[in-house]
Structures are given as structure tokens and as C-alpha cells.
């Protein structure tokens, strides 16, 4: 049976062998990534011990899935400016965005991603066929750009995105990921924010229930620049959002906020590392988990402060609300600090809805379901309020409300 070779790490490597001559870009880099992927494998894909970075997430279900093909022909646009279906740019569904080129037309792997260390980045580097390359020139405010991904059937796609903001530029990038099927969406996004530039990066992950979504983002922020990220995670079967931010210039800022709303047997992993490499940097992170059904939420967040990154100010808060008896949260907030004149703190809380608050609302005549909705909404507000663009926050809030209505139903 040929089905065997389409599964697991071996399946991806076989696919690479079949495609390697037709893939765009530097063949040597892809070959090196393939070697790394061969060595690293899929975390949990074999019986060996998983690395610490994958302590709480096993990709065994991914290793056992068969990615046989796509049904991309049936897809309609979803209102985004730049639409990718199964990882391939669809000009027919997209509009013109200044500064945009297709990765397939100008394939280049930047210096930030680490295929040698991160298995899914190796997989992406090996097989990336397309993606969005977006450059905002110095001093330009590019407004909002919506980047949409639609997955179909049993396809596996590995888009490679590059977002470059030149000096003083600004952009709000709204990424959406949706679809229908049991596909794998494995994007790698490389972001550079130059001096004084400002990127707001909103990610709305609402993949199909059976889909895998494994995103890795590398962001480098220069002096005075800001990377302001927020991810709302709703969909997918096994998902991971992995963000690596490096504050490479003085007084740079990174926000890596998010919320994961899970139900059923969903497994969602939010992993982030912020590295303060230069002095006076600020990093902020608030990640909220609301877990229903038999879902499992994972948060791993590390703040690293290099020896000379004095006057660093780092803060991280991770909270989980368990709504059902079978939900599980695993949280690992880490501090790794080598400079002495810093202010770094983190906090984590886990619990259910506060009985006293619930009682307070009920005693004032608020029905139980409404009271719960109100408290969950309030719990999430602390994270959602960090999205400063009102129109975008409204979109996210609407999704959160819809999610809650589905839980109550």
C-alpha cells in the first residue's frame, strides 16, 4: 500500500524527495532542513522521549494522519485581502496589496527561523511552496492587511510568510486561519520590525475541528520598535502557537498576548520565548485559557534576559479557567535572567469560576447561564482589552461570544 509512505515523518520526507526538484528557492537549505527534520522527527511521533520544548504536546495524532490531497477547487474567498488556499496564493480571491509578493516568486529563507532546532520549522523549510512576503517601506502606515488561510480536505501545507517593517513603518496584520477537513496547516512567519516601527499582529485561529495547526513565528524588534501580537485560538484538533521574539535594539517592546478557548478533545499549546538582548526593553504577556469538555490547554512562556540587557522590564501573566471536570491545563512560565538591574515577574493562576462572584450575580437575579457568560467574558476581557484597534477587537469579541453560545447550546 502506498498509503504508508504518506504518513508520519517518513511520509513528509518521501514527499520532499518527490518534490525537491520542483520546489522554489535554495535547494541546499531545503536539503539541510530535511536532514534536520530526519534527525528531529515529529515530537511524540515515535516512542522516544520528547524534548522539553514539547513536554506537554505530542504530535502522535499528526504522525498517524494521512495527508492524501486537497479539495481546494470548491473554495470561495473569505473577505481577506490576501487569500491562500491550502497554502497556495489565490490571486482570483485576493485584492491588490502594495508591497506584497508571493514567496513562490521570490523564495528566500531568512536568518531568524531555526530549522536545525525546531522540528516543524525544519518541516516547513523542507516543503514550503508559497507564502506572503510583505514589505512596508520606511515611514509608511500601511493600515490593516488581512491575510487569510483556508485549508481543505486532507492536505498538508507549509506556508512561509515574511513581514518586514522598515524604519518608522506601521501595519496592522490580521491573520485568519479557517477551513474544512482534516488538513495540516504548518506556517512559519518571519517578522522584522526596524527602528521605531510598529507591527500589530492579530491572529485568529479558527481552523476546522479535525485540522492540525502548528504555527511558528519569529519576530525581531530593533531599537524603539514594537511587536504587538495577539492570538485568539478557537479551532483545530491539535494546535500549537509558538512565538520567538527577540528584542535586538534598545527600548524595544514585545507583546505576546492571547486567549485559547477550547472544548471537546481539543489540545492547544501556546509557547513563547521572549529574549531581551538589549537594555531598556519591555515585554508584556497575558494569556488566558478557557477550557471546556475534555480539552487540554498548554502554556509555556519564557522570558530571557541577556547579561547586558539591563533595565529590562518583563511581565507575564497566564491564567486558566476550567469549566468542566475533565479539562486540563499545563502551565510552565519561566524566567531566565542574567542581568541584575531588571524588573521581571510572572504569575499564573488556575481555577474554576469563582463561586462567590457567581452567587453575587445570581442573588441579584441574573440567570445562571448569563452569570457564567458574564464571568467568562470578564475573565477574557483582560486579554482582549489589550487589542487596541476597536474594529479588530470587535471582531474577536464576536468570535468569543459565538464560541460561548456554542458551549451553552
Amino acid at each position, binding site marked *: 500500500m502506498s498509503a504508508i509512505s504518506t504518513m508520519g515523518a517518513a511520509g513528509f520526507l518521501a514527499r520532499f524527495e518527490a518534490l525537491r526538484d520542483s520546489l522554489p528557492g535554495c535547494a541546499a537549505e531545503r536539503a539541510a532542513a530535511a536532514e534536520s527534520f530526519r534527525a528531529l522527527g515529529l515530537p511524540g511521533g515515535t516512542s522516544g522521549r520528547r524534548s522539553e520544548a514539547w513536554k506537554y504536546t505530542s504530535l502522535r495524532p499528526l504522525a498517524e494522519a494521512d495527508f492524501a490531497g486537497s479539495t481546494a477547487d470548491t473554495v470561495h474567498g473569505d473577505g481577506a485581502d490576501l487569500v491562500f488556499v491550502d497554502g497556495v496564493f489565490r490571486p482570483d480571491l485576493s485584492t491588490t496589496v502594495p508591497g506584497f509578493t508571493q514567496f513562490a516568486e521570490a523564495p528566500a529563507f531568512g536568518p531568524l527561523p531555526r530549522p536545525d532546532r525546531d522540528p516543524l520549522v525544519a518541516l516547513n523549510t523542507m516543503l514550503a511552496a508559497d507564502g506572503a512576503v510583505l514589505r512596508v517601506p520606511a515611514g509608511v502606515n500601511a493600515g490593516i492587511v488581512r491575510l487569510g488561510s483556508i485549508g481543505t480536505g486532507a492536505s498538508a501545507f507549509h506556508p512561509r510568510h515574511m513581514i518586514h517593517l522598515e524604519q518608522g513603518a506601521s501595519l496592522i496584520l490580521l491573520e485568519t486561519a479557517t477551513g474544512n477537513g482534516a488538513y495540516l496547516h504548518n506556517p512559519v512567519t518571519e517578522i522584522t520590525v526596524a527602528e521605531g516601527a510598529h507591527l500589530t499582529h492579530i491572529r485568529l485561529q479558527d481552523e476546522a475541528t479535525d485540522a492540525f495547526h502548528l504555527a511558528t513565528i519569529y519576530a525581531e524588534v530593533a531599537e524603539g520598535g514594537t511587536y504587538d501580537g495577539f492570538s485568539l485560538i478557537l479551532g483545530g484538533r491539535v494546535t500549537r502557537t509558538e512565538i520567538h521574539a527577540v528584542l535586538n535594539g534598545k527600548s524595544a517592546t514585545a507583546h505576546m498576548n492571547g486567549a485559547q478557548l477550547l472544548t471537546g478533545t481539543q489540545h492547544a499549546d501556546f509557547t513563547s520565548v521572549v529574549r531581551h538582548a538589549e537594555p531598556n526593553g519591555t515585554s508584556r504577556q497575558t494569556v488566558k485559557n478557557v477550557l471546556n469538555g475534555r480539552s487540554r490547554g498548554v502554556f509555556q512562556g519564557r522570558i530571557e534576559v541577556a547579561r547586558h540587557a539591563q533595565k529590562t522590564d518583563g511581565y507575564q501573566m497566564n491564567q486558566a479557567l476550567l469549566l468542566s471536570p475533565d479539562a486540563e491545563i499545563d502551565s510552565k512560565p519561566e*524566567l531566565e535572567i542574567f542581568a541584575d538591574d531588571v524588573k521581571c515577574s510572572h504569575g499564573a493562576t488556575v481555577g474554576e469560576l469563582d463561586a462567590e462572584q457567581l452567587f453575587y450575580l445570581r442573588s441579584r437575579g441574573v440567570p445562571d447561564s448569563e452569570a457564567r457568560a458574564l464571568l467568562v467574558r470578564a475573565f477574557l476581557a483582560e486579554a482582549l482589552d489589550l487589542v487596541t484597534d476597536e474594529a479588530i477587537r470587535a471582531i474577536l469579541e464576536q468570535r468569543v461570544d459565538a464560541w460561548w453560545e456554542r458551549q451553552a447550546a
Partner: protein
Amino acid sequence: MSATAEILDSVQSSYKWGFETDIEMDLAPKGLNEDIIRLISARKEEPLWMLEYRLKAFAAWLKMEEPDWARVDHPPIDYQDLHYYAAPKKKAGPKSLDEVDPELLKMYEKLGIPLKERAILAGVEPDPNERPQIAVDAVFDSVSVATTFRETLSKVGVIFCPISEAVRDHPDLVREYLGSVVPVADNYFSALNAAVFTDGSFVYIPKGVRCPMELSTYFRINARNTGQFERTLIIAEAGAHVSYLEGCTAPQRDENQLHAAVVELIAMDDATIKYSTVQNWYPGDADGKGGIYNFVTKRGACRGDRSKISWTQVETGSAITWKYPSCVLIGEDSVGEFYSVAVTTNHQQADTGTKMIHVGKGSSSTIVSKGISAGKSNNTYRGLVRILPSAAGARNHTQCDSLLIGDECGAHTVPYIESRNRTAKVEHEATTSKIAEDQLFYCRQRGLSEEDAVNLIVNGFCKEVLKELPMEFAVEAQKLLAVSLEGSVG
């Protein structure tokens, strides 16, 4: 002398426990194999089941790999280059203090350990101003050389003796509980310990008994090229109560020495065990040469309802510390506590913390950890709070604070929080900062030297933990903090 040299000098001379005692020793040949284990077992006159236990552990150890996940760095340890048994020639376990080698008594005197029992005359009230009585088990390299107040304790049914003696005299208790909290193959170092452990203390508090005095064990490594593998087992039956203290020192040597201990605590219904440690093994010199590798597995099982185990530790010594005193909270409403101060200077490395495993309904735990890094040291808090589905209404609060002194050290926090019961409440907070300039200024302006000011601030930083120590230990611990940080400011 330049300022730097002065600081170095003060640091080097600050380990005042670094002397050697010249005692004729009975030393097993170097190396680790079944024959050595048989030799240890024979020297200890152990029953066959104990030897079998050791051999099983050794077989397990051979199949295991040394863990590498901790943030510590050291050259590979040659386990064949150590003596696994070292005992003073004079027969171990003397019947009275008069039989103890005077050289040894002198050493303990020098260390300030009270091995003399001050006889309390019948009918005479003890002087309230006198220091409280403490029963001491003194472990020297591989054997216990003296245990005081045993008679007083046995009157209330408390057993306090070297574990090697307990193996012979109380085999049923030892067999039932040894390895029941830390199984043989729990980890690499616990397996090694189970194979070659030589001495340590055994404590048994019968039902309903409140131990009339503090119990303590004093560990001393003296011989060269030895490893010390202590094994301590404390059992508190229903309603029992005991407070146990542990101290340790070692001579100042250029080579590293290994100390791999296992401590097991068992608390039944309504029992309380309070376990306090002041760890002051030789930390190595200013260049990071020498010092003890302190790789320790400590775990307590709160088996009974409303039982309580409380760990308090002040860690100032050792070149490397790898230690996670933990509680398995099985009983309903059982309580686990972990209070820790870890100070690292020069090239010391500490990776320490705790695990709180919540199994029982309504179990609760508190973790307070204070890490102070100075010099070129690295100090890591690593902890786990795990709530199992059965632990309805469980509660944990964790507070981890790190203080950095100087810009060449590192402070790290690695907590793991896993909850599988929605009714459980877990809170974790961690901060990292340096000594605030304004606090320092305030003290300096009132005439305190910089060093005294730092000591004052550090003591304040650690207060929450120090107040958990028995009073006399608290005083010693405060002094130790001051000595450890000597020369690390300015």
C-alpha cells in the same frame, strides 16, 4: 592588598568548617560493583533482604542514565573513582559517649554540635533559660558515630537511631517503609543511594506521641575521595508530631565530592513532620574549584487525612545543589509546605525547588522560595504543582522571589503547573529584582556599612522562610547567610 584580593581572601576564609579531622579510617577499595555492595552490607551486618534490596537497586541503576535536565554543569562523574564506604576504625555505634573517639568528639565540639547529654536530675525543673534539649545523630562519612538522648526518647516510645541499626533491630518497620516513598528506581541518584547507602537516621514516632524534643542529624564528610550516601526514614504514626533538623559540613578540598542522599517521610492521619535543613557543604573556592555535589532526593508522603509535612531549607553550601524536597498529598485535607532560601556565590550552581502532588480531596500546599545569586553563580527554582482529578478543592499558593547581586550571576525560575481538577485553585507568583538602591541608601545613610546593609536587606528578603526554622537554627541560618554573601558586594 587590593580590594579585589581582599574580597577574595574574605570569601576563601569564610568557610570555617573546612578543616580536616585526622582519624584512622576503614576504607573500602575504590569502585562500584556487586562486591562492594556485598561488603557494605556485610560491614553493616545486614540481613539478606537488605542486601537483595541493594543489589536490585544496583541492577536498576546500571540501566539508568544520569539526568541532564537541571541547569547545572559539571564534568562527568567517575563513579568508579570513589570509596563507597569510609568509617572511623573504632567500632561504629558505641554504647556511650565515653566510647567515642576523642578526636571525633573534638571535631563535633569545633563544629558546635552538642553531643553531650546534660543529665537532668530527677525532680529538678529544667532551667527555662537553658538551651532546649536536642537529640543528635552524628553521621561521619559512612557511619553514625553517636546518637544522643536515645533513652529519654525510648521512654515515650520514640525510636531514634542510625538506619543501619534500625535495619537490624526494627526490620519490620524498615521493610515496610523503606523505598515506599522514593522507589528504588525513582531516579538515577536515588537508585545509586539505594544500592550503596551507608547511614542516616531512622525515626519512628508512635501513635499519638508528640516527640518531646527536637531531633537532629549532623552529617559530616571527612574522608577524601568518598561519596556520602545518607538514607533517612521518618515515620509519624497517627496523631504523632516531630520536628527534625539536619545540618551538614565537609572539609575544604580541591576535588569534588559526591553526596547523594535519600530522605523519606511518612505521615499518617493527623500526624505532623517538620523537616528543617541547613545545608552548608563545602561550596568550593572562589574559582569554583572543589566543593560537594549535593544530589538529593527528599520526598514525604502525607498518607493520612489531615497529615502535614513541612520542609524548610536554607541552602548555602555545595558546589552544585540538585534537590527537590517534595510532598505527595494523598490524605484528605493533608498539607504540604516548602520554605526555601538558596544562596549561591562564586561559581556555585543550585537547581532546587519542590514538587507538590495533590491526590487527596482538600489537600493544600504552600511554596515560598527565595533565591539569592551573587558572584558568578546560577540559582534556579524548579518546581511542580500537580493536581490530580481526585484532588477536589485542592489549593496551592507559590511565591518565588529571586534577588541578584552583581551582574555576573543568573537567576532562573522554572515552575510547572498541571491541573486536572477544576475545583482546585493554584496561584503562582514570581519576581526577580536586585537590592533596591533606595533601601541600600536608607541603611547606609544611617551608618550601616554596605555589607551590613546588604545583610539586613537579604535577611528581610528571607524572613518569611527563616521564621519557619526552629529558633536556634534560625539564628545560625542568619549568620550563615551573612558569611555566604561576604565579599559579594561593592
